[in-house]
């Protein structure tokens, strides 16, 4: 297993392996997301309090979960890059930032749209919403820092440090609903606990969560492969791959 991970650290191995997975991952992601959305829009019963606006939960909750775990993965890549100097980790960090930013943007926007019919307001400056907005700025900060600095190695180290420092925001997002008084309800989806909602509402949410994670890895791998092609363009194997397309 360890050897498999070690081999995966080579840009070429990663490229070849994930290229083979790509069509299957893309098809599976499309099927799961489409199936989940149709289920959520057509077959889920309306909530007794929120009515049909509860259908927004199926796109908001997975986005909010993924926004946080995407950041955790970015910080993980940052640690690997700083400690072991694995260049694939730097590429992974660079590739995940725009994806994470767009998913966090989705969490914020769908949350605001859901907030209007349920809370009566688009936005409140409470701890959960504000810390999620900070998460969005952290992703954008990593992207901005990368494009502002010259020297790939120096820029990579600076982004890695910023990503690790930003980790402090994750427990704040996670526990803000317990620590402070807030309009935001507690977590709707917990893998390790019995669902607080009926199974007919929880199952489509599980499908959407799986779909969002599949989507995340499919796009992340695409972006990493692009970065590999750019950085390794002088190697014989990349020239071969480019020529055969």
């Amino acid at each position: 297993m360890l050897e498999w991970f070690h081999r995966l650290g080579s840009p070429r191995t990663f490229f070849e392996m994930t290229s083979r997975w790509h069509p299957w991952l893309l098809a599976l992601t499309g099927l799961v997301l489409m199936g989940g959305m149709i289920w959520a829009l057509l077959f889920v019963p309306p909530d007794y309090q929120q009515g049909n606006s509860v259908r927004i939960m199926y796109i908001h909750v997975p986005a909010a979960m993924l926004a946080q775990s995407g950041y955790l993965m970015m910080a993980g890549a940052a640690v690997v890059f700083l400690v072991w100097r694995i260049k694939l980790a730097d590429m992974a960090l660079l590739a995940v930032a725009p994806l994470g930013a767009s998913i966090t943007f989705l969490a914020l926007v769908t949350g605001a749209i859901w907030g209007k019919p349920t809370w009566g307001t688009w936005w409140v400056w409470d701890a959960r919403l504000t810390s999620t907005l900070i998460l969005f700025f952290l992703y954008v900060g990593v992207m901005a820092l990368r494009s502002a600095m010259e020297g790939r190695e120096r820029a990579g180290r600076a982004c890695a440090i910023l990503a690790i420092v930003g980790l402090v925001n994750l427990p704040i997002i996670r526990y803000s609903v317990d620590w402070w008084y807030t309009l935001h309800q507690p977590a709707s989806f917990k893998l390790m606990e019995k669902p607080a909602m009926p199974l007919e509402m929880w199952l489509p949410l599980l499908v959407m969560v799986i779909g969002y994670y599949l989507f995340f890895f499919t796009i992340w791998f695409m972006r990493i492969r692009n970065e590999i092609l750019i950085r390794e363009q002088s190697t014989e194997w990349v020239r071969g791959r480019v020529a055969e397309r």
Partner: protein
Amino acid sequence: MKFESFQAFLNMDGQGLFVWAAYGITCIVLLLNVWWPGMALARIIRTGKAQVAGRQPGAGVEES
């Protein structure tokens, strides 16, 4: 199915605007996330091929 008609499905008891706006924005952002790296890959391949063509013998030498 939880709706009696297509009209009821679109209207969603007056909450259709919120639901459809949220799903619409989500679909656009997800599709853009697929489109961007796809376009970037096409650009990388184009540039790579142009560079390979430039390296081949005789390339870049103008005929007199």
